[in-house]
Each structure stands twice: as C-alpha cells, then as structure tokens.
C-alpha cells in the first residue's frame, strides 16, 4: 500500500514515479525458469527443426536444475522470512520448500516429456503430436509423421507453466496470485491437446480443461474484487488485518472468500469442483498428466495454504466447517467413484481427487504441524504419482498406451518387474506402512487430530480403506489373471526408466527413512508463512 500511496503523492506533485525495488536474487528461481522459457521460444524461432530438440532439452534441464540449486542456496544460507518485489512475493520457509518440491518433480516430469522412445510397438516419436495443427487422420498429419517431425514447443510451454507454478504459492497478494494462476494454466491447456495418439480425446480434454479453468479463474477474480472492496487492498496481510479489526462489510468478506475458494479448490480438484480432473487426466498426453498430477497439485495446495493460513487465519471459525465438508466429500467421492473405473489413467485421477481430500485435512488443521504435514504429503505424493504415470507410458500396444485395465491382465507374469513396481506405487497410494504414502497420511491426520478434527480423520481412514480396495483390485488383475495372447508389450525408454527409478527411490526412502525430509518440512515451517 505504501508504494501506491507514494505513487499517488508523486503524481499529485507532478514529480517522477519512484522506481519499485526488486530483490532479483531472492526471486531468482522464478526469473530463471521464466527466462529459460523465453529462450526456448527464441530457439523455436531461430534454430533449425533438426536441432531444436537437441537444444531445447539441455536448456530446460539446466534451467530447472539451476533454479533448484538456487532455491536450496536461498533456504540454506539466509533462512529468509520476508517479502520481495514490493511485497508482491513472499520468500519464506514453506514457499521455498514448495518451490524446491515443484522443481524436482518438474525435472522428473521433464524426463518423461523428453522421452523419444524406440521404434518398437507404437512408441516411436515420443508422446507429442508431430504437428499440432495437422488434422487427425489427414494427409498432412501422415506426411509430418513420416518426415519424423516432433513438436518441440512443449519445452518452452512446460517451462512457462513451471514458472507460474513457482509463483502461485509465493504470491503475497491476490493480483499476483491471479497472474501466476493464468501463467500456470494457459500453457497447460495447450499441452493437454498435444497428444500424438488418440488425438480426439486429447483435444477434447484441452477444450474441457480450458473452458472450466477459465470459468473457475473468473470466480477467483471476482472473489479477489470483493475482498479488495472489503479491505481496500489485495495484499493478504492487509486483508487479515482488516478481518482482525472487524471493520467493513461482512457480506463482501464472506462472498469474496467463498468465490476465491471456488477458484482455488478447482485447481486442487476438490469435490464439487473435480469434474475436470478425470477427463483431463485421461485425455492429456501421459507425461503432461504426470506434470499436472504432481507439480500443479503442489502449487495449488501451496496457494491454498498461503491464502488460508495468512489472509483468512483469523476467520477460521467461519471457513473451517465448509472446509470440513469439502474435505469429507472429496475423500469419500474420490474413493467411491474410483472403484467403478476401468481406465487406469482415470482411476489414478479419482485417486488424485481422494488424495486432495486427505491433503485438505492438513489445511483444516491450521497449525504448524498441519502445514509441515501437508508439505511432506505433497512431496511424497508427487514422486509416487509421477512414477505411476511413468509406468503407464511404458505399457503399450499398437495404438499407443494400453491404459484399459483389462489389457493389463497378467502383466505380472509377462513383465514381473514393471508390474511389481506399479503394484508398489499403488500400495504407496493406499498408504501401506513402509511406503511414503503411510508417512504422509500419518503426518496430516496427526495434525488434524491435534486440532480437534477427529471425525474428519475417521472419515479419512475409512475412505483410505475403500481406496485400498481398488488399488488391490488392479494388483489382482496384474498378478492373478491369465495374460491375453495379444497383450501389450513393455517398452522402457532410458529416460522413462530413469523417471520410474527416481519415483521408486523417493517412495521407498520417504517411507523407510522419512525423518530427514520431515525435519526439513518442520524446519521450513518454524516461522510459518511471511505476512
């Protein structure tokens, strides 16, 4: 606020507008990722088609890795707890933890996105359309496929999306948060429509995601406008101060909070705003599904945590009952609808909805343990879900991925290692002890019980048990039924195999030796979010 009043004063005197002060070092990771995205666009414009892939992949890797190292250095050296860029972005422990998680998960997703595959069994050419503008089934599409074209725009688009994801949980005012939301979402809408095979499904997913996403961000924005009307500022700390003062119109406040929550819960995929998730997860190219299921979820929950812990903490007796309801609905609906699914990507989408419900119990807690538990859960779930989607990309038949459950019958007899790894990921989703899923659920449920949300935890445990049923059903189909004669083959490219290995390692390590990361999450949340 001080800056804007300075600007108004300077304008009134006819003087110069004071230049804003930007701490470039503190917000370096975001700037680096977005800078690499812009460089990627220039590569598309100026580098020849044959060389683009060879240039895009290394700069994307270096950009994400560099941003990760930068984040680590920021957290390790100065333990920051302050706002940057005139108060638009918060640089604090939880934010750096979330950003580090997003960057690592994005690096693993990039392995999947960059996979080119070998010439066998419908895996050639990677996961993305040769030319997105060529009509499916047309001569132009055939020609571009035969010429061996590949769409390399996915790399700059992905980097823009990751840049937005880094900014979303860091935003300290609602306008920055809205811009970050759009920077994150717009590239994802496009990426969803770029699948190489089953292009009709992919385009349909893009349209559905786009229309519903734009609809929900309009709600988010109208909520911000009402909160601006309530408090005279879009800054989270000012809104919180106004709530404490108990001044202004309560109608504006409550309506604003409700509309804002619609936009935020949509991104997290909580019931009743979850309808997009199964369609989009099923239709999108699987590496993009992996990116959305891990990084977007982390980012969306980061923003939810910041809004509810910073701006609305003093209002928590008003929003908690609603959040209880949403959390219960999300856990129960996600687990029950998943039972009837026959497509594995769709099944994992409903599983992701159920997990969003478990994560919301950590948000309901509104305590330090709730925050650190949610951070740990997000990291643990992200690695497992990328690993699971990576396995789905490996099981292929002539038409691409064989994602239908019936096609996976007897996979355990044909390729025991792949089936075993997938079974392990499913057990981690179910929350079996000695996997990361158990530790994560334990952390958020413990925090919720401490804050008196025991009924919520009971519902959570019951829906975990329901969820375990359909995870085990997939394992039974894989190991205890006879393989089909023309069943799918397992095609493991080196990058995909590396992604599965990393996901598996993280799931095991966070399950068996969770203490270092739990300590890190606890340490990051010592001072909670900056105000």
């Amino acid at each position, binding site marked *: 606020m001080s800056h804007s009043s300075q600007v108004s004063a300077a304008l009134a005197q006819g003087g110069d507008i004071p230049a804003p002060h930007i701490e470039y070092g503190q917000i370096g990771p975001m700037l680096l990722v977005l800078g690499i995205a812009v460089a990627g666009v220039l590569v598309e414009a100026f580098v020849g088609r044959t060389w683009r892939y060879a240039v895009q992949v290394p700069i994307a890797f270096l950009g994400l890795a560099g941003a990760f190292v930068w984040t680590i250095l920021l957290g390790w050296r100065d333990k920051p707890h302050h706002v940057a860029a005139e108060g638009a972005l918060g640089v604090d422990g939880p934010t750096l933890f979330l950003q580090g998680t997003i960057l690592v998960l994005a690096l693993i997703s990039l392995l999947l996105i960059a996979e080119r595959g070998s010439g066998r069994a419908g895996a050639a050419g990677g996961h993305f359309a040769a030319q997105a503008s060529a009509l499916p089934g047309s001569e132009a599409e055939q020609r571009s496929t035969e010429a061996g074209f590949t769409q390399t725009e996915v790399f700059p688009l992905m980097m823009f999306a990751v840049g937005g994801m880094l900014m979303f949980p860091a935003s300290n005012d609602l306008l920055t948060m809205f811009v970050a939301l759009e920077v994150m979402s717009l590239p994802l*809408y*496009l990426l969803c429509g770029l699948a190489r095979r089953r292009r009709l499904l992919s385009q349909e997913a893009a349209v559905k995601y786009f*229309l519903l996403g734009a*609809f929900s961000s309009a709600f988010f924005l109208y909520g911000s406008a009402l909160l601006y*009307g309530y408090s005279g500022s879009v800054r989270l700390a000012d809104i919180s101060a106004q709530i404490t003062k108990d001044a202004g119109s309560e109608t504006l406040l409550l309506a604003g909070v409700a509309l804002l929550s619609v936009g935020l819960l949509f991104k997290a995929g909580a019931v009743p705003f979850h309808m997009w998730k199964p*369609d989009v997860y099923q239709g999108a190219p699987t590496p993009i599904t992996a990116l959305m299921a891990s990084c977007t979820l982390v980012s969306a929950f980061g923003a939810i945590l910041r809004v509810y812990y910073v701006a609305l903490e003093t209002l928590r007796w008003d929003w908690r009952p609603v959040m209880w309801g949403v959390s219960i609905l999300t856990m129960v609906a996600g687990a029950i609808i998943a039972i009837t699914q026959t497509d594995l990507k769709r099944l994992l989408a409903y599983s992701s909805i159920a997990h969003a419900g478990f994560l919301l119990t950590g948000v309901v807690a509104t305590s330090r343990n709730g925050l650190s538990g949610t951070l740990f859960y997000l990291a643990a779930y992200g690695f497992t879900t990328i690993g699971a989607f990576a396995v789905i990309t490996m099981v292929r038949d002539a038409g691409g991925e064989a994602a239908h459950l019936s096609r996976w019958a007897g996979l355990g007899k044909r390729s025991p290692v792949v089936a075993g790894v997938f079974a392990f990921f499913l057990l981690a989703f179910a929350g079996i002890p000695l996997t990361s899923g158990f530790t994560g659920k334990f952390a958020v449920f413990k925090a919720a019980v401490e804050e008196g949300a025991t009924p919520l935890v009971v519902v959570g445990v019951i829906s975990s048990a329901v969820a375990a049923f359909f995870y085990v059903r997939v394992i039974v189909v894989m190991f205890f039924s006879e393989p089909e004669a023309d069943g799918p083959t397992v095609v493991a490219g080196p990058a995909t195999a590396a992604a599965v290995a990393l996901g598996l390692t993280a799931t095991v390590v966070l399950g068996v030796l969770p203490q270092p990361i739990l300590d890190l999450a606890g340490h990051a949340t010592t001072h909670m979010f900056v105000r």
Partner: protein
Amino acid sequence: MSPGHYLALSAILFTIGALGVLVRRNAIVVFMCVELMLNATNLAFVTFSRMHGQLDGQIIAFFVMVVAAAEVVVGLAIIMTIFRTRRSSSVDDANLLKY
C-alpha cells in the same frame, strides 16, 4: 449515481456470464460468457477503487485485461483446433471422455 449501482450492475453481469457458461452449447459463446464475467470483475475493481479513493483497483483492471487477452489467444486456438477436427464447436458433441 452512487457507486452501489455500479456494483449491482457488475454482479448482474457476472451472473449473466456464469449462467451463460452453464446453459449455452457453443464453445465460442461459452467463452464469451467467461469474458463477460472477467469484465464484470473489472467493473467491480474500478468501482471499489473509486469508493476507496485509490488507484490500485484501476491498475488491477489493466492486468485483468492483459490476462484476458492472453486467455483469448489460447482459448480460440484450442476451440479452432477442435472445430477443424469435428466440424462442430458444440460442447455437447465433445463427449468421448466420460464416466
């Protein structure tokens, strides 16, 4: 006129937009309704800005316009693609992904 009238107009426009998204079938019209919702938001921001005697809300309206323009680019590209494939821009025809 008091600023309250502008707020009422903004709420009415937002509601018309939201209803339009829910009932219209053509993807382009649905998208136009989303744009109407964003413009209703702009009106609310500018009115609140006037009520609080600040410039912030007016500046925010500019940001929203830029973001809405970017959204149009992406949205029309996606709707164009699916129209060329299916020769239809009805959101009811795109029904391969279900259950």
